[in-house]
């Protein structure tokens, strides 16, 4: 089966969880065999893993005819695209886009990030999608997250092939309810035009059905999974602290509920003293959190090491005794799974999508700081609690594989194509 996928991020150049999830899923689908996947992203860097999908960069797809010979194309974009593909794409330009600002190859520039003129970039991406949909051969279209819904719809209109959209998050998660009407419009339009909608958790599924008024019959949950840990990370050597460490990792924003972590920490510190709390990450609420910790008079035990990337994340986890994610609204949340891979017992909010598939973690309501404090205390005080969560967590997370998630997506494809 041939699938045409539209995404926005792709490892190693990722900005959030979306890239990790689309990569894992695509790879997992390929592992099931008999899948040919074309993955479109705004701006490839050439170092992406191409073993299981053909990657097409929107910024290398011509929308206006420019004369160019083979060698010139090869020298310009040879590292990210086969010149032959460029010429194939060029012969499928469907309208005159010369009025737009294009470069010497007839392509639009993309940042591939989340710039201020994001809406314009989304629109350009959909124009490019029209060219690609006319060139590439495929049976089904799959759009990851709202940025690519317009592209998916366009491809559907051009080809008449069924469209699946993948909801990794909705604007209700990002804004705690204060939705941006334009974004909501794009999201809802995508959902209405889709032949099937995949959500990353039942929590998101309910949002889609209730807040966007979508027919429940066409919404299916496929929970995310996690890539197996790389060998080198399994044996990280990190000096063990004398004191217990409780870690929060992630953007320090309203959505992640950092203030509840500070409150819980203050409760724990009233009773135990050999424990430190770490809030790693950056975000618009960081200063407020530093103030709050000072107010609670726990600054000597509450640390803000800033944004962590790559290997640092794993080192941080390795040194931790407890991982905590008190998110107010989390469509899925892969990070507790990564913590479990490192053998760190996790406490997550019930308002997180991953709570639906995890048993060997502690689940509390995000606002229930008493329960959270109690869970932290229990893990750092009772050795059996740590041991059981540590061991069972490892076993459990080993069973959560992208291949299984990929299989479910393929089943949905087959259903749509009546195979």
């Amino acid at each position, binding site marked *: 089966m041939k699938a045409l996928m539209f995404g926005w991020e792709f490892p190693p150049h990722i900005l959030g969880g979306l890239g990790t999830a689309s990569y894992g899923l695509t790879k997992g689908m390929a592992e099931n065999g008999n899948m040919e996947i074309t993955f479109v992203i705004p701006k490839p860097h050439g170092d992406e893993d191409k073993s299981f999908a053909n990657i097409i960069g929107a910024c290398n797809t011509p929308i206006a005819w420019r004369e160019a010979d083979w060698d010139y194309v090869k020298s310009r974009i040879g590292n990210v695209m086969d010149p032959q593909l460029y010429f194939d794409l060029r012969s499928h330009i469907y309208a005159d886009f010369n009025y737009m600002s294009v470069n010497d190859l007839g392509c639009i520039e993309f940042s591939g990030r989340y710039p201020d003129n994001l809406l314009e970039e989304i629109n350009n991406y959909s124009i490019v999608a029209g060219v690609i949909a006319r060139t590439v051969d495929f049976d089904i279209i799959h759009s990851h997250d709202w940025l690519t819904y317009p592209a998916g719809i366009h491809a559907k209109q051009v080809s008449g092939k069924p469209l699946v959209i993948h909801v990794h998050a909705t604007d209700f998660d990002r804004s705690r309810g204060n939705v941006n009407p334009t974004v909501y419009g794009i999201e809802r339009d995508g959902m209405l035009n889709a032949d099937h909608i995949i959500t990353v958790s039942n929590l998101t599924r309910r949002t889609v059905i209730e807040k966007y008024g979508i027919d429940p019959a066409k919404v299916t949950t496929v929970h995310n999974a996690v890539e197996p840990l790389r060998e080198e990370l399994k044996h990280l050597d990190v000096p063990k602290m004398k004191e217990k460490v409780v870690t929060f990792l992630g953007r320090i924003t309203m959505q992640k509920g950092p203030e509840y972590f500070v409150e819980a920490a203050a*409760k724990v510190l*009233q*009773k135990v003293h050999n424990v430190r709390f770490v809030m790693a990450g950056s975000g618009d609420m960081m200063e407020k959190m530093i103030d709050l910790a000072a107010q609670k008079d726990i600054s000597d035990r509450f640390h803000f090491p800033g944004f962590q990337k790559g290997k640092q994340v794993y080192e941080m986890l390795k040194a931790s005794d407890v991982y905590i994610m008190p998110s107010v609204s989390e469509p899925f949340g892969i990070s507790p799974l990564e913590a479990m891979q490192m053998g760190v017992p996790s406490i997550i909010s019930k308002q997180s999508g991953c709570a639906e598939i995890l*048993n*060997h973690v*502690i*689940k509390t309501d995000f606002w229930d700081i*008493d329960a959270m*404090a*109690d*869970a932290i*205390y*229990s893990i750092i*005080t*009772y*050795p*059996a*609690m740590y*041991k*059981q*969560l540590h*061991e*069972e967590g490892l076993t459990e997370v080993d069973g959560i594989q992208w291949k299984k998630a990929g299989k479910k997506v393929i089943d949905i494809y087959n259903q749509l194509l009546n195979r």
Partner: protein
Amino acid sequence: MSAICLYFQIHQPFRLKRYRFFDIGNDHYYYDDFANEEIISKIAQHAYLPANELLLQMINDSNKKFKVAFSITGTAIEQFQQYVPEFIDSMKKLADTGCVEFVSETYSHSLASLTDEEEFRQQVEQHDKLIYELFGQKPKVFKNTEFVYNDEIAAQISAMGFKAVLTEGAKHILGWKSPNYVYSSAGAPKMKLLFRNSKLTDDIAMRFSDSSWHEYPLTADKYMAWIADCPKEEQIVNIALNYETLGENHPRATGIFDFFKALPRFAEQKGIEFWTPSEAVSKLKAVDVISVTHPISGADEARDVSAWLGNDLQNEAFHKLYSVAERVHLCSDRRLKQDWLYLQSSDHFFYMSTKHFSDGAAHAMFSPYESPYQAFTNYMNVLADFIVRVEEQYPLSIENEELNALLTTIKNQESEIEMLNKELRVLRTTIEQNENNAAEAKAAEKPAAKKPTTTRKTATKRTTTKKTDK
């Protein structure tokens, strides 16, 4: 087949309230009174009370041919006394028919038999005392918590003077042997063993209202026919059910009450009698010896103790609890002793089982907690506070032996002081008597002779002070 032995088990634990770690050392009350009251009142209305009425009627209708055995835990009785006292009265009425036998148990449905012989003995004694006070019977047959049994426990039970034990007819123990005979125990050769017939028990307990079961619906006629069809030489079928089976697990609408009501009639038709366990033990001889090395139980598929002691959480909680057993035995604080009993209920460990993630929905069904981790955290917090209280009585820095020695010294001194006091009293009375006698004698002669008496009194006082100085 000649007879059926029917047992009912009644147990309710004292469920714990949500106990946070910051309550440790501050709050010494651990129980969720609201939940406990609600649960026992609800079950009593649906099951216990109507079932008692039914059994009483069955006994009367059958001219006392219908007999039944009960094992009721101390924690359940305490809750009845507190919340549903009418049930105790109803039970007394049932006991008065003479067709009811009470079987012994541990007081709080505990697993003490697996770890602490002394505690086990005390709890059984305490339970039997309570049963005697309420119903005037001294239990002669023993049934351990959830049928937990092995040779070692058998020896302990036998030493307490019981004639027989009821346990689970676990397949991995019996093998090809039938549970429908009386056996003797390898751990205590004089003691007889009765085995629960799991198949016939579960036909009622688990499958009675299961409409997907191929034998559904189960009628008294059919059920008695199965029992009658057992080989002739087999002696007795032991059916042991939770009392909630009647009316709670299978609601009235399933016809469970009518099913039981019809049992004696069909039994009589087939020539099957109802016996109490004591009758069975005295009438039947053991056919073989059975040895059980590893503890068996009536729970889960495995029929071992893994339902309570199957993971790290359960083991840590269990060991931590019994690590203070000796200390608690030395204490005399009544509230502490009471909490000690309540905290031992096996239910607390059952809630911590992680088995239900894979199978055994039974664990999740009865648990007041959302997850086994929550159950563990809550229990450990309570236990931490409990241990703090034990330590307040006797600091842990003193070794048990030393403490024992000190306590004996104190006790000895106490008895010595008492003895000396007694002596002192005796001496005092003799002196007083002497004085009185002397005074009377003098008064009879001359009233002026008062002076020498006082001098003599001070003289005796002086001698006593001299004595203590030495």
